[in-house]
């Protein structure tokens, strides 16, 4: 595994000297990675520290990283400058709604494609996989027109319905369902279970890891999305946190950094919490689903 420049070489014949050298290398490596990590985390630190910094310090020169005095005033401001509680709820309903619908619809379709050997299933699968290549930005205008014709602009229906199923989720779950042994569902079928019953009571309970993975991926993507809520909502009270915060960078050019960082911190907090709680699954989730 020693693929870096720090790979051990037999410079010294004296063993303890070699071990000492290796330890020094080890801690040099550690120090280097630590420094890099701190640099990478600087924007995260600036969000956290600035959110608790008084306005006077934010605009002071020279600027500082850590607040001299801690305050929660910025958090009060974000709730008075924006309908922030509403935005938070909207984000939650939008990302949660898309995730819930997509998990149900995708898993149903995936079950049909993995287990019901119907005529045309292969052709359908190919069409679904081919549609993975379409970036949503390319079809935004007709989607918007359709949502408009349905009278759904600026509603949760308009935000959620177009994403209530997605080709990637179907494909991902189908692959997972195929990896589950068929003996289980055949046993259930022999016992007279309907296909829906097999799906709900045999296949789904065994697919919890895949559903969680897909669920996290879908939730995070939608929670963080900017373009979608920007287009499908027209009033500030229907926006999401992400689209709402962009209202702070008004044409005036003066950016209220304290308020913005407080809002950013609240926007990131739920995801950071999920991330720290189920970190391994989270990283796994993007490593597998991210390669869509």
């Amino acid at each position, binding site marked *: 595994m020693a693929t870096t420049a720090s790979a051990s070489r037999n410079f010294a014949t004296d063993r303890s000297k070699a071990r000492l050298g*290796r330890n020094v290398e080890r801690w040099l490596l550690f120090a280097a990675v630590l420094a890099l990590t701190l640099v990478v985390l600087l924007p*995260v630190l600036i969000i956290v520290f600035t959110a608790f910094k008084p306005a006077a310090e934010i605009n002071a020169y020279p600027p500082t990283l850590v607040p001299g005095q801690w305050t929660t005033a910025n958090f009060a401001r974000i709730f008075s400058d924006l309908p922030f509680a509403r935005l938070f709820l909207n984000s939650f309903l939008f990302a949660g709604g898309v995730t819930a619908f997509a998990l149900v619809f995708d898993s149903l379709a995936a079950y049909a494609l993995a287990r019901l050997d119907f005529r045309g299933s292969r052709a359908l699968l190919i069409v679904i996989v081919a*549609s993975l290549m379409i970036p949503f930005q390319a079809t935004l205008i007709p989607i918007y027109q*359709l949502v408009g014709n349905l009278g759904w602009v600026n509603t949760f229906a308009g935000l959620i319905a177009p994403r209530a199923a997605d080709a990637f989720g179907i494909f991902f779950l189908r692959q*997972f369902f195929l990896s*589950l042994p068929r003996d289980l569902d055949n046993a259930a079928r022999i016992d007279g279970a309907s296909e829906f019953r097999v799906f709900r009571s045999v296949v789904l309970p065994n697919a919890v890891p895949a559903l969680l993975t897909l669920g996290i991926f879908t939730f995070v993507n939608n929670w963080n999305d900017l373009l979608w809520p920007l287009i499908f909502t027209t009033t500030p009270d229907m926006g999401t946190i992400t689209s709402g915060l962009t209202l702070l960078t008004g044409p005036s050019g003066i950016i209220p950094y304290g308020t913005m960082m407080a809002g950013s911190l609240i*926007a990131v907090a739920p995801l950071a919490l999920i991330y720290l709680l189920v970190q391994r699954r*989270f990283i796994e989730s993007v490593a597998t689903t991210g390669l869509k």
Partner: protein
Amino acid sequence: MTSTVKPNAKAYRPPAPLGGRTPIRTARQSAGIAIPFLLPALIVLAAFVAWPMISALRLSFTDSSGFGAEQWIGFDNYIRIFTDPQILGTLSTTALYAVLFTPIALIGALALALLLNNARLPGRGIFRTALFLPFIVSLAVAAFAWSYLLDPQVGLLNYWLRTVGIHIGNVLQDPVLAMPTVVLVAVWKSFGFYMVIFIAGLQDIPVSLYEAARIDGAGAWARFRNVTLPQLSNTLAFVVIFAMIAALQAFDQIYVLTGGGPYRTTQTVVMEIYQEGFKKLNLGLASALSYVLLLATLILSIVQFRFFGRREKDLT
């Protein structure tokens, strides 16, 4: 996939019918039984993926503005895209963005993956957690944080650089520096993702190859060049195309930081689609531009398919 039990799918074909007595259905069924399962998803995909594809294609040949009559104008929109220097500029801007983003993000990610894959680094798990953190931050929020760090008056990074003699000024208003800045924000947000994929790839390389190389007297660089890189080439090529596709869709941080400016130096294709389609209501032109984006993505995806046949293999 994340399954812990991963039996070979082929090994689990349903057993052959035992004299036709079992209720196990193995013969091809009519689509009837599958319809209730497929219908919800297919309605959504038909309405919001398939139909918009067709509709966007039709719109791209019209001068539609969303209101009133629209006229069929043939290839005029496409001709305009490739002749109007402003719109043509968005294509080259997007290409420049992709050309900057892809190598910077991937080299950074690979370097960190190599460091983190070193078994002798203490606290590898914690570093991985910390370095992946930016990926869960939305690009918009990342843009807010960077805009403060880079603020010409009160920005900390700007100030620190000044104390060591580097004057970057107002990067977001600088026609030369605005593009690298919006690229930097995207790199910061997404390198952790590529890093995790590289780490997974590195862990799949058999240790014996490194041992053999070491016995042959290969130094660290030789081992990297002759073992790591070739073994990682599949992952690498896959990620390169993946990053390029992501780069073609650049929007969020540009919308927040520069709005496409200064002097349209950061006006990417998706920014232009947004402004033409949703602000100026030039639906025809925006749709044509959408199709150019679609085609570029398609070409990259097909290259990816060809290269790896990952999904094609999975399909059989």
